[in-house]
């Protein structure tokens, strides 16, 4: 199952068009001060695409985890030209108009072929 789970997470690179089939509608987001549901993930996707021109995400590292082998850990690399302000939990990051690269790590729990729980730095 773990290879299928990892492939499921990789498919999210295709963007919001596939989010409905990948994420459970009641997606539990951590920290739990965040709202439930997949709109949280869509908002992150749109936020980065707004802040960066030619935004591109790739997977640097990926593995399955957890006692039940139901977690997928992914190290993402984002890159693009930072053109507009990016909102972060620590306030706004001003655009530099330069090419930038950064890492994001996510952990998700997959049940019956859908992501039901998500931890993310963003």
């Amino acid at each position, binding site marked *: 199952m*773990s290879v299928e789970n990892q492939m499921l997470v990789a498919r999210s690179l295709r963007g919001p068009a596939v989010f409905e089939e990948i994420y459970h509608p009641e997606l539990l987001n*951590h*920290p739990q*001060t965040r709202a439930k549901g997949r709109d949280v993930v869509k908002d992150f996707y749109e936020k980065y695409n707004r802040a960066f021109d030619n935004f591109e995400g790739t997977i*640097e*590292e990926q*593995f*399955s*985890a*957890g*006692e039940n*082998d139901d*977690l997928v*850990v992914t*190290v993402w690399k984002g890159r693009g030209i*930072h053109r507009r302000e*990016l909102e*972060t*939990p*620590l*306030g706004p*990051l*001003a655009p*530099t108009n330069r090419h*930038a*690269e*950064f*890492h*994001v*790590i*996510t*952990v998700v729990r997959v049940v019956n072929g859908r992501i039901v729980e998500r*931890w*993310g*730095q963003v």
Partner: protein
Amino acid sequence: MPGAMLWAQMETTPKRKAVQRVVREGPSSYKEVFAHDLISHPPLPTPGPDGMRALQQKYASAFADLQVFIEYQFEDSQDHDRVVTVWRLTGKHVGDLETPLGPLKATNKPIDLQLITVARFADNKIVERWGQV
């Protein structure tokens, strides 16, 4: 790193314990926890345990009253050599914080931040790490 931890429901495997020492014992544990040729993604200003100390200093100077909690730890289920840690940091943002996307200016406001790191072990030490900074 000055801070407290949530011990509730914390399963203590040797690898999880090693990561917990970073919080419980602070920089004095780094030489035992991290390999001298530690590889970091993104790279640290200086390699090895000294680089982790520099990272700790960076956070300590950006945040006053910094408290570090470990909320979740997971082990990889294939090679059993990696530990994922979900951290929670609270404090007050009093100094600029350098990030790969430029500086985050001090706001003098309280922070409540979730960070995720991955540590890969060999011979009981962390030989490779991934983080956002």
